[in-house]
């Protein structure tokens, strides 16, 4: 599962942030999961816990919150704004799988529901990002 690779990136990034900010103990880590990447929360949560170094004191008491961010798009040719559901979503299982690995493949798999263009901006809800880190 490539969720482990993304969870690994989140943990490394949080520890880097703590290192640079002089944070001895991370108390809360809010991770945003974009709807477009269709990452299963329970898989990602499991991956985070598996990846987290057991002996890492900076993360020992961290509360991890996973938030889902809905995907929003804006078509460049016709300026129409739409959601993933309004686009009709991926047509085939392979389309969903492609966007799961590389969310930018939305441009290969989705179309603007108004003008059918593949030329749209992804405004929100792409993939995994760190929304906030709290610590002391």
């Amino acid at each position, binding site marked *: 599962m490539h969720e482990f690779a993304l969870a690994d990136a989140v943990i490394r990034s949080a520890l880097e942030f703590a290192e640079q900010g002089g944070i001895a103990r991370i108390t809360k880590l809010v991770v945003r999961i974009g709807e477009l990447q269709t990452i299963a929360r329970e898989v990602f949560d499991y991956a985070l816990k598996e990846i987290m170094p057991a002996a890492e004191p900076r993360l020992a008491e961290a509360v991890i919150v996973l938030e889902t961010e809905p995907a929003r798009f804006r078509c460049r040719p016709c300026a129409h704004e739409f959601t993933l559901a309004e686009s009709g979503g991926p047509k085939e299982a392979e389309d969903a799988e492609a966007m799961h690995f590389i969310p930018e*493949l939305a441009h290969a798999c989705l179309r603007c529901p108004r003008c059918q263009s593949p030329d749209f901006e992804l405004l929100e809800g792409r993939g995994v990002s760190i929304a906030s880190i709290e610590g002391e």
Partner: protein
Amino acid sequence: MDPRLSVVGARLAGAARILGVTGGKGGIGKSCVASALALALARAGRRCGLLDLDLTGPTDHVILGAPAGFPEEAHGVEPPLCSGVRFMSLTCFAGERPAPLRGADVTNALLEILAITRWGELDALIIDLPPGLGDAAMDCVRLIPRAEYLVVANASRVVQETVRRNLRLLTEMKAPVRGVVENMARSGSDEVRRLAAEHGAPFLGSLPFDETLEPAIGSAERLARTPFFAAVSALRKTLFP
């Protein structure tokens, strides 16, 4: 905060050397050189990876005849082995669908590939870059600071005009240029050698225009029997002794 930036270095840590194959213009054979170089490394017993970063016009899978299909997942994605080469491309995910990507999309897709691909231990990772000085080339310099570069040129003045800009930019960005190679050489000419000398880069020789190359596309076995491949194998010895 983008967590992927924290993991790129770790994903590539197992690659002893990383070589970007670049050039100013499309159609000068960068992908053939990159693919053949990766194949030459594998045939010399080296552990080699090939990453096609020409996201909107990928072709390395065609050149090597890489099988279609999603890669295996194991705490990330494992580049499939193709004729001895660990291979990764957007086509592993997109298949035959066209992927129209603009600037930020290119950077995001490239970063995602770098963040999730587990290359393991490699003697060399060859990166096939798209022509010119666009997002992928700039991101390669930014995200993989230890990458070295091989610049592909030919005797055409049109090509040299673009390659000259490439060399100037790489030099300005302090990206190490291992050398310039002339591709599709038809007769003895010194233009590419002079171009390399102008920029203080080693001239690494000429790869012949080879009419047997096109029929060999798609088969590593046939590719390996071409005079072009023999010349690339000599280039491999220079770059990776």
